[in-house]
């Protein structure tokens, strides 16, 4: 499993302070490779020689970093008694190029002495602190919860505790001094391989028990005091209930194809005339959200065929299939604090290698009308879940295209902004 190769989840409390510059802190990083290069040049050109030197930057290093590095190299050469002179007076004309390849920064010195020329190189790992860029900036409508090298499938917030579901583990974190500290991590055991884009969902059970659903697997962490996660293969439907909606939904999930088969049961969590312990066969779908239509729950399903299916609402159990232009396949619902109306959150119709965004929509006459500006996320959205605990937030996970990390966001609507 990927977690065992040292890619432990690193969590950062999102703070503007994270954007602080690391450049000054990295100044010493260049000393060692500069020294190495100076040694190699001196060995070829001879210590104490009169040299001419010129620099070129062919790497992704910034101009300021390049300037610092060239200063370092000059300093190191001078420290070895070498004198910088005009090319005409030089014993050796040295061209130093700051280059790079996929693995390393590569500093190359081409030492020309007469008609001969020699090349020395110094590699430097690109995973140096200089390459570690800060986290993405935040917007007021999204809140970065945490980042991970491994795919985050779902995050459930319980007070100061964050429960994080990844394909390999269910982990508890607790917020302390602005950072999340890992409390407990329990591996998830499964007999069959997970799908490539494995999905998972955390639902709360009665009390403080946590239930995690993954393709073909159901895990229950019944006792928070014990690090025991009971996982078992199951074909049971996933509970997709939404806080505040009186009718609960269980949807069967296809573990190989990684979508909901469309077979669903509706059960009454509060008395309702709409549906009561009824099963329905709806088209296969990826995700589901529920809003209200004339005070009745209206389920919206993002079908695997790209169409959107409306079920419930004023038309009862008669599903309606429509093509909604621009909607992606991840849906959630959220309630704005400034109004009782439940809104639809939907991703855009983008590819998995593109940046994605989430936008709130009103449902009017079974069509979507934008209810606010889209929130951009730094990469494709790999998960979007209606919060199982609070109706005014949703969880989105984005695969950051720049860092390659998975970032979990809490989405919430802020009125009058």
């Amino acid at each position, binding site marked *: 499993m990927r977690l065992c190769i040292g890619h432990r989840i690193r969590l950062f409390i999102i703070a503007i302070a994270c954007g602080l510059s690391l450049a000054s802190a990295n100044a010493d990083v260049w000393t060692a490779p500069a020294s190495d290069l100076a040694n190699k040049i001196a060995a070829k050109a001879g210590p104490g020689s009169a040299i001419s030197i010129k620099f070129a930057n062919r790497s992704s290093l910034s101009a300021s970093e390049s300037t610092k590095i060239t200063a370092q190299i000059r300093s190191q050469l001078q420290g070895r008694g070498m004198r910088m002179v005009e090319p005409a007076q030089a014993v050796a004309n040295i061209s130093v190029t700051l280059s790079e390849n996929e693995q390393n920064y590569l500093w190359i010195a081409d030492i020309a002495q007469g008609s001969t020329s020699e090349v020395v190189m110094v590699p430097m790992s690109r995973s140096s602190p200089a390459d570690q860029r800060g986290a993405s900036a935040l917007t007021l409508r999204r809140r970065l919860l945490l980042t991970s090298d491994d795919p985050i499938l779902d995050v459930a917030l319980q007070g100061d505790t964050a429960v994080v579901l990844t394909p390999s583990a269910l982990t508890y974190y607790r917020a302390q001094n602005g950072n999340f500290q890992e409390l407990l991590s329990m591996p998830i055991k499964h007999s069959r391989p997970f799908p490539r884009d494995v999905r998972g969902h955390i639902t709360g059970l009665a009390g403080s028990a946590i239930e995690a659903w993954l393709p073909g697997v159901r895990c229950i962490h019944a006792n928070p005091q014990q690090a025991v996660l009971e996982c078992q293969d199951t074909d049971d439907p996933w509970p997709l209930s939404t806080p505040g909606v009186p009718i609960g939904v269980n949807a069967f999930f296809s573990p190989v194809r990684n979508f909901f088969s469309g077979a669903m049961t509706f059960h009454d969590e509060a008395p309702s005339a709409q549906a009561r312990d009824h099963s329905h066969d709806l088209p296969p779908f990826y995700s589901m959200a529920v809003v209200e239509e004339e005070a009745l729950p209206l389920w919206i399903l993002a079908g695997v065929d790209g169409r959107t299916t409306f079920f419930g609402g004023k038309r009862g159990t008669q599903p309606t299939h429509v093509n909604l232009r621009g909607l992606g396949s991840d849906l959630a619902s959220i309630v704005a604090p400034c109004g009782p109306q439940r809104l639809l959150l939907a991703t855009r119709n983008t590819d*998995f290698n593109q940046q994605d965004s989430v936008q709130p929509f009103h449902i009017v006459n079974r069509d979507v009308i934008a209810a606010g500006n889209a929130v951009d996320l730094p990469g494709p*959205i790999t998960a979007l879940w209606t919060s199982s605990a609070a109706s005014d937030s949703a969880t989105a996970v984005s695969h950051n295209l720049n860092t390659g990390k998975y970032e979990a966001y809490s989405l919430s609507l802020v009125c009058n902004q």
Partner: protein
Amino acid sequence: MVAHAATRPHYGGTLRVESRAALPSLDPSQSIAPAEIALRDSVLSLIGDTLVALDANARPIPRLATRWQSDNGNKRWQFWIRPGVFLHNDASLTPAHVAQSLAAINPNWKVRANSDYIIFESELPLPELPVELSRPSYTILSRASGQLVGTGPFRIEDFQPARRLVLRANDDYWNGRPYLDAINVTLSVPLRDQALHLQLGQVDLIELAPDQVRRTSQDNRRVATSAPSELIAMVVPNGSSPAEDPRLRQAISLAIDRVAINNTLLQRQGEPTAALLPQWISGYAFLFPSNRDLDRARQLRAEVHSAQAPVTLAYDPADALARTIAERVAVNARDAGIAIQPVPAMTNNGAAAKLVRIPASSANSHAALASIASSLDGAELPRVLTAGTPENLYAAERALLDDFRIIPLAHVPESFALSPRIRNWTAPRYGGLPLHSVWLEAAQEAAK
């Protein structure tokens, strides 16, 4: 009715691919033309896995090997084999399978299987062995039943060289079932036909020559392009009488206007080069000057006193761009008083030189240079492998180029045009077909 796709991966569907490659064999132990290697590597990555993969920084990470270690000065390596992996014939992957597979690719290696690991032993140090093993050529395959059986996300359903290749999804792939149900690759399709078929919706994925990329993009078609990684070079084999004098070959190299080739013929999609590895892979390609020096070329030509018979330059007749490049090389060489005659030929039978396309196959400089060197008859392969530092790698590349038998012209990207159905195209920077990760947009039904 406008189709609307979903961002959530969709399982199912058959991806239709066309390639100009004939793909005479999928077995990496058999040598094929350099231009065929790119597709074979892509297919190998679909039907099998290597022991080691490369991460985003081109550094080795576990694949079928969960970990590894070396001792004895990198002359002895141990690779622990991932448990629970099954071959397509439902047999469990064992270290013995791995050892046999690797020995078939490189008979010089001494590979032994143990209970859950394999041991490499070599007389020379192999500091970059994990990187080397990340090359698609070292895909672990079983050849027990006379057929290639791998562990990859797809298994071979039908393979007819030069005609078609059908791959079927492996539902039990250890790293997750692929989204596609099947991949249908039609082989030996000319580029022009491919473009037509894409327009007609008969195919989902086609190859693009560099000079097609800009136009295809302007046609609002989806284009996927790698970094410039494929080497276009003129290769003069040993014993080529008209170009046997190295001064003549150097004169040809100096006479070629690589910038014009790149800017115009390659539509600025590539990079002019005199190196084997592109700058982004090696970091030192700029040390091989690619400038045109016609005066020096003429001077070298004058030093070769003998009357020069035309140097025949063979190019792939199915590759219109190759023909134009060959003609441009001939035009440039003529300026230096050197007669080059482009001739269409699938192979260089009788031709003094040939124009080749060689994919880098890896973002790692060692692996890429080893791959290119092996495509050039593998003469310098051991030297490359033993080169542990960038300086050694540079020296190895310099040695390969010193006698001007290989005259690099440009590095070009691998480019593909994609139908709108294709989703999640995440090709590595060096190119290849990331078909294990793509999915197809679901078929549409009429809205009610």
